[in-house]
Every structure is written in structure tokens, then in C-alpha cells.
């Protein structure tokens, strides 16, 4: 077990070397000059030259890469040309916000999608099944930002049940930062009011984001449950008198869930990199917004920081998923 984890962690090293090389190369061969953009239209040639020197961009590329890579190892993720802020400090603020959103979305998708898929499978080709199938098809087809706008219109504007946007009211006191995720931090601080406030803000963006994984999980769960229901062991379980609810909720559920697990892992990565639309609509201060601002000004360092952290989390999440396989399936565990 520990050997397995260590081996997987060692495999992370080449993945990251490759990732940094790729991102670094792509961002540096793009046309345009970030320094010129940062310096503004009135900047003189000398000012631009001195800025270029300051950011080390006059040096040859391999040397810049080396400087960047060794910096990473020491926790220095570079500096934004535009804001002059260190990228690491920015990520510490923006990354937890996006993570909170993504995890909440995937949690919603799992909590609703798994029962919906099960229900759909055991009522196959009857009306609950038709209903879930139509709903999941519709939610895959609907663009996330559009749903986000509809949610805002209904729950914030018309009903006024939930705040329109933002992550936490400016006038309120946020909980002390531990993880950077407001819901968890407020729980850790025992601040019930802050917890409900942050949940209220989190609910709509998480819902908008969860829609497409929710639909996929539902359909995956339906397909794999139908498959498992055809297995010989289910017939044996029925033939020996086990109740339908015990068979479905205990035996079939675990078998069907293992194939859905893969999709969940992939979706976390997909949501991380695709969070920008939802973040824009809800004004959610996450890495999606951060990266977009950096991209339009060709500010490389934040872009690289965001890419690397998404890559890192994606690989880590899939390691956890692989370990979960071991929890679910004894065969994986023993190999």
C-alpha cells in the first residue's frame, strides 16, 4: 500500500517536469510582449528595457527556464508582470476558492447522481427512468453559464432566497484562514453564521457547475447498474432470498459505483480548468478569473502557476481515486 503510494508519487516528478517545460515553451513562443503591455502605451524604450531586465526576460530561454524551475522548488512561483505580486501568494487566495467550488459541485453531483442513476436503472423503461434520462440529457445540453444566469434570475432576483454573486459579504467578518475554503474554515472556527453565509454564496455556483457531471454520473450509474443487474451473482443473491433493497443498496451499488468513480476523477480536473464561466457569472474570486486576466495581458507567470497547480491537483485526485479503487475492489488491493 505505502509502496504503491510512493511509486505513484515518484511518477509525479516526470509529469511535472514535462508540464513545466510545455507550459513554459508555449507561453514564450507566443507572439507579443508582456512587458510592453504591462508598461503601458506611454512607456519609453529605456523603461521597457529596464523592466525586461528586471523580470529576467532578456536572458536566453533555457536560462529563464532553469531560473523558474529552481525557483519553484524553493516555493517561488514567479511574479506577475502586471501587478508585481508573487504568484504563490495569489494562488494561496484564489486556488482554495475554486477548489471549494469544484468540490462542492462534485459532491452535489455524487449525492444526487448516484441515487438518480440507481433509480433510473431499477425502473428501467418506466416513467422515473424516462424522467431522469430526459433531465440528464437536458442538463448536458444546457450551457453552464446559461443555467447560471437562470439560477440568478430565479433564486436571487425573483425569490431573493440566495445572494446574487460573490463569495462572502464584504461587511461581514470572514473566519480565520486555515484551508482558504470559507465553509471549512468557518466550521473549524465554530462560526455558524459564517458557515451558513458562505454556504448561501456557494450553493448557486456549485449547482451551475455540478450540472454536467451530475448528468454524466447519473447516466454512468444507470448503465453500470443495468450491467451489474445482469450478473450471475445477482441471480444467486435473489435465488437465496435476499431482499431487493439489500441487493440493490449493498451488493449492486458497490459493483456499479466502481466504474462511475473513474468519471468522477476526470470531472474534477475538467471542472478545475473550466471553472472560468461560472466564476465570471457569479463573480467568484477563483483561479479561473485569475487566469483569464493573466491570459489577456500575456502575463506568463500566473498562467504557468495556474496550469501547474491544476495539473498537480488533477494528478493527486486521480491518485486518491486509484486508492479508492483499492477500498472498493479487493482484487486491486492485493495486486
Amino acid at each position: 500500500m505505502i509502496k504503491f503510494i510512493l511509486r505513484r508519487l515518484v511518477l509525479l516528478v516526470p509529469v511535472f517536469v514535462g508540464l513545466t517545460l510545455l507550459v513554459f515553451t508555449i507561453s514564450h513562443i507566443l507572439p507579443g510582449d508582456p512587458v510592453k503591455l504591462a508598461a503601458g502605451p506611454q512607456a519609453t524604450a529605456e523603461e521597457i528595457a529596464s523592466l525586461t531586465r528586471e523580470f529576467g526576460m532578456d536572458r536566453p530561454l533555457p536560462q529563464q527556464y532553469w531560473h523558474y524551475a529552481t525557483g519553484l522548488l524553493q516555493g517561488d512561483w514567479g511574479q506577475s508582470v502586471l501587478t508585481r505580486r508573487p504568484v504563490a501568494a495569489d494562488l494561496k487566495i484564489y486556488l482554495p476558492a475554486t477548489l471549494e467550488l469544484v468540490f462542492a459541485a462534485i459532491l452535489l453531483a455524487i449525492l444526487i447522481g448516484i441515487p438518480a442513476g440507481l433509480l433510473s436503472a431499477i425502473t428501467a423503461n418506466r416513467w422515473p427512468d424516462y424522467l431522469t434520462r430526459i433531465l440528464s440529457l437536458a442538463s448536458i445540453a444546457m450551457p453552464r453559464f446559461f443555467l447560471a444566469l437562470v439560477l440568478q434570475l430565479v433564486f436571487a432576483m425573483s425569490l431573493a432566497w440566495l445572494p446574487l454573486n460573490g463569495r462572502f459579504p464584504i461587511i461581514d467578518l470572514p473566519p480565520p484562514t486555515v484551508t482558504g475554503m470559507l465553509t471549512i474554515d468557518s466550521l473549524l472556527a465554530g462560526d455558524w453564521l459564517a458557515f451558513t453565509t458562505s454556504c448561501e454564496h456557494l450553493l448557486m455556483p456549485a449547482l451551475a457547475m455540478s450540472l454536467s457531471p451530475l448528468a454524466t454520473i447519473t447516466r454512468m450509474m444507470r448503465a453500470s447498474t443495468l450491467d451489474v443487474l445482469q450478473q450471475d451473482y445477482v441471480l444467486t443473491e435473489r435465488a437465496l432470498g435476499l431482499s431487493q433493497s439489500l441487493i440493490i443498496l449493498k451488493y449492486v451499488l458497490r459493483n456499479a459505483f466502481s466504474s462511475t468513480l473513474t468519471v468522477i476523477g476526470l470531472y474534477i480536473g475538467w471542472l478545475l480548468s473550466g471553472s472560468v464561466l461560472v466564476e465570471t457569472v457569479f463573480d467568484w474570486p477563483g483561479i479561473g478569473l485569475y487566469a483569464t486576466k493573466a491570459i489577456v495581458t500575456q502575463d506568463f507567470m500566473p498562467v504557468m502557476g495556474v496550469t501547474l497547480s491544476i495539473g498537480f491537483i488533477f494528478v493527486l485526485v486521480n491518485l486518491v481515486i486509484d486508492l479508492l479503487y483499492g477500498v472498493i475492489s479487493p482484487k486491486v488491493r492485493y495486486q
Partner: protein
Amino acid sequence: MALLSIENLHLSIPSFEGEAQILNGVDLSVERGQICGLVGETGCGKSLTGLSVSKLVASPPARYRQGAIRFDGQDILGLSEGAMRALRGRRIGMIFQDPTTNLNPLFRIGEQMVDVALHSMGANRWSRSALSEARARAIAMLERVGIQDAHNRLDDYPHQFSGGMRQRVLIAMALIGRPDLLIADEPTTALDVSVQAQILQLLFDIVREDNIAVLLITHNLGVVARLCTHVAVMYAGRIIERGTMADVFNQPSHPYTRALLNAVPTQKTRKGTLQGLGGSVPDPYLPHPGCRFAPRCAIAEARCRDAVPSETDLGHAHAVACIKAGDPA
């Protein structure tokens, strides 16, 4: 009154090509202490007969057009799912063909056995004493089917057992509720020949000790000859000959039974003299009138194609569905 009696059972299953006539008047009875072999070629309806006894054929879409299944006087086909579940695992046990696919791969065998034991005891799942009682029964049953160190093996997963061992576990599971009737559907077909004999002997010993009625579904006449007290031969959804093992094997009266027995190679069979049976099973969608076996039958006459032959009683519960059975040979 027989423990299990199937009377004139007709079953059809709709499909894209029409309504498949799967069972066409199955008559069969099994008494306590009898081991009844149900033989016939693939697709003749043996397995669906067995599944019907436990009401495990999804209906609809399948449709029982006629007939009845009586278990200990109860009309099985009329029972609700709840009432049927009270019989499954408690009074009727089942074993299936492939031990590699009939145990849930993600659960310890102990967990699966305990759940079946709890059901058979009718006990509350959350009661601690019931749980330990169920576990004790599982251990005792595993020991009885010859699994060494049963206490520890309860915590193993199915893939840690060999095929033969898994079938032993499945036998233990089927018998843990001390059923009166055991339906064994090809229990040794998926096993190595050397293991087959052990499993059959084990099965034979246990059902004899507990005086269990057994319906043994197989296409292997050798298995029938070794184990069974009674035989029913099935062809195209109908029992065409039934009786005691000795009667049917020594005086086969239906041409199909004779053809089956002739097709078994023995030590005396010379090279090139093995006899098969020409032709193939009749179309279940468009059954022709008359005896279903007539198109493949060596002694068929014109009258065989006119009407379905009824059963002729040859005495000693030996019956045959052939209009020529009474004729002098």
C-alpha cells in the same frame, strides 16, 4: 403428495421474432429424498424450468400460459414476491453453473453467507446475537462442505478461492437455510473433471444426510447415472420420458432417450462408431404440429406429425410421451 410437482407448465417469452414457446407442457414431480436428474440438450428449457420453480423468470415479459407449480401444496405461480422470498433460501436452495461468476467479487464470502443465513433465520440484521449466530452457521456450513480453516476463510474474497472451492462455498450458501428442495443447475459443468467428481460426491452426501429433494439440471448423462435416483428427459420444452434411473437407463422407451444414450461414448465404442443425432432443435417460434421430435426421429410415422402425443404410463412411475411406446418393438 410430492414435495414439488410441476403440472402441464407452458411458458412463452416474447421477442422481436415473435412469441418463443419455451415450455410446452412440462410434467415433473420430485419427492423428498429423491435426486431427480433433468436432462436434455442446450436450449430445451431445463434452466427455465428450474428458475420457474423459484419464480425467478421475469414475468412479464415471460408468460405462463397454462399449468401450475406446486411446492408442498402451495401454488408457486400464484404467490406474491414477498411470499416467494420467504421460500427462497429457506425452503428452496439453488446452485448455478459457473462458480467464478456467482459470488459477488467485491464482498467477503463471509459477508455474503451471513446475509443469506440471516435471511434464512428470519432474523433482524442489526441484532448482534443474530449476527454471531449467522456467522457460526456459516462457519459450520463451510466446514461441512470441506473447507479447511473455515473460521479464517470467512474473511477471504471469492478470488482467493479456486473454482472448486467457490462451488463448495456456493453449495454451503444454498444449504445454509436447510432447504427442503435444492435446484442445482449444471453445478459441475464449469469445473475441471477431477473436481467435478468431488463436488458431486459432496452434494450427494449432504442431500442424503439431510433428506433433501434435489432437481439436478444437467446435460451430462454420466452425472445422472452416478447420482440420480430419478430421471426426466426433456426435449423442446417438454418432458418426453421420466422414471427411475434404472428404468429409463435400462429400458429407454422414447427414441430421443435412446438416441441420447447411444451418443454417450463408452469403453466399448470403437473408433468411428460414435452415434450422434442428426438435425437440430425445432424452431420455438413456429412449432409444427404433432410430436416435436418427429422431424429427427428415426421411427416417425405419418400419425406422429398429426397430434402431440400424450404421456403413456409404463408402470412404476415410468412414463413416456411417444405414441409408439405401447407398440410391439
